[in-house]
């Protein structure tokens, strides 16, 4: 598989505090890659740096072989990298359809056109009936679905998912993960940050384990999931087996 995203020695700081320290990672066409780690490990900062929402201190970000480091967020989206941010960031005063249109605004002409793509209706049947409702009236699960639908409406080549199951009940979270799996089956490439480590590893082809802004481990997700020491550290299970060092 060819490399779609190539992050090399990426560093991100906030007011002198280094959140990401020399991280290198790769996402290949058509795969799901998970970044896992504790709170404050720097997972979201990596996604934000890739999407152009925060500036990188150093390192390189290559998308399809071309450097996108330093590009503003709107230019990164125009290249096909779309981030579904943590906390959903739904525009509550706008209707559900307007939220979708915001994501697709670069495909509109001067005047807005009303349209609902059939594919989106199939993926998100609960939203299809609520297009005219204010987004603020949606439940937590529906809001997460809207966040995902909005991300897809922007027509991404690479979808950055930041904590897609955050704040959802186990049942709703399972629905979100099922959707992510279906998106992968349709050929979408996904880089995902997720605190539900077991789920993240079950879904992903490969994963990176982040600790204090640095990659501690990386490898095929199935291998990491069977790594007792990693499971012990992050899921609380006892273990003695060694893990593969990065």
């Amino acid at each position: 598989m060819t490399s779609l995203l190539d992050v090399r020695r990426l560093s991100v700081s906030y007011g002198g505090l280094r959140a990401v320290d020399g991280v290198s990672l790769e996402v290949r066409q058509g795969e799901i890659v998970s970044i896992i780690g504790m709170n404050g490990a720097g997972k979201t900062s990596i996604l934000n740096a890739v999407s152009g929402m925060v500036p990188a201190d150093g390192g390189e970000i290559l998308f399809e072989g071309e450097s996108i480091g330093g590009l503003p967020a709107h230019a990164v989206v125009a290249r096909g990298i779309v981030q579904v941010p943590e906390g959903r960031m739904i525009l509550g005063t706008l209707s559900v359809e307007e939220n979708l249109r915001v994501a697709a605004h670069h495909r509109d002409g001067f005047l807005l056109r009303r349209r609902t793509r059939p594919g989106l209706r199939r993926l998100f049947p609960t939203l299809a009936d609520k297009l005219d409702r204010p987004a603020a009236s949606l439940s937590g699960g529906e809001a997460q679905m809207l966040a995902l639908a909005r991300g897809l409406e922007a027509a991404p080549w690479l979808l950055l998912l930041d904590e897609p199951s955050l704040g959802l009940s186990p049942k709703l979270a399972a629905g979100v993960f099922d959707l992510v799996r279906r998106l992968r089956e349709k050929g979408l490439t996904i880089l995902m940050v997720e605190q539900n480590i077991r789920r993240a590893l079950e879904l992903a082809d490969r994963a990176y384990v982040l600790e204090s802004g640095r990659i501690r481990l990386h490898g095929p997700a199935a291998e990491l999931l069977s790594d007792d020491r990693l499971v012990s550290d992050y899921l609380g299970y006892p273990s003695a087996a060694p893990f593969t060092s990065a």
Partner: protein
Amino acid sequence: MIDFVQNTVDGIMFGSSYALLAIGFTIIFGVMRRLNLAYGATIMLGAYAGTWLHVHYQVNALVVAMTILACTVLAGIYVERLCFRAVRRDAVLASMVSSFVIWMQLEEVAIHLLPERTYPFPSLFVAGSFELGPFLFRAEQITMLALAVVMVAALNLLLHRTRYGLALRAVCESPQAAGYMGIDTRWVMLCAFALVSLVGGVAGYAILATDEQVTPFFGLWATFKGLIAMMLGGMGSLPGAILGGLVLGVVEAHAQWYLGNEYKDLSAYVLLFAILVLRPGGLMGRRILGREELAFRRV
């Protein structure tokens, strides 16, 4: 009763220009979450640029009107660059203070352009009045109201039917979320300044064409009237800005008739004080809840 109706109609007509001024303040406040104190001064500078051309080169009223719109937009972009883009978003006070400084700067430029106290202002409007039953209507005021209605309708279409309007509403709610969705937030903000400057230019032209004179104090006057109308209606609310402008116009018209000209401006301040005490969020703004009420609503 006839006087009351006549004053109300006059107030609505003049209040429509206040509404346009308030819309300018409201849109910038909605997008930037900061007050642009130089807004009135940018309109005044545009008016002075047009008047300067008229005084020195005797250009016709249409050229004056176009010059006002163009120069107000340029001055608005100048303010955005200096006071808002160059200042961090969370530095609210720095933006307000710098926009106040630019206000003074623009006023100085205007005084240097035309040093005398007042200048006649060339109007495109048809002057005159006509009677309809017991009521008297001035043609300039009807033109002013028509201009305001057209501007509000155009703004409404722009905000709800166009790609830019949707982007502007998204940025108003959350610049960060809009950024994640690929909206060029800086471009949207720059265009918002140009847009409100255009609206302000139309309002300024309508007011000055009715008054037929211009002074450097027009910037101060426009800032006060626009701010008061915005706060009356509710900060950040477009329908509120329109309502606030109309209410201000009507109250001033009644105060002028029943109490005398010297009470016209005072009535605006008293009205603002009363609204802020009774309904701190403005007529159509969100209600501002007290600490106890907030705590009560949590459970």
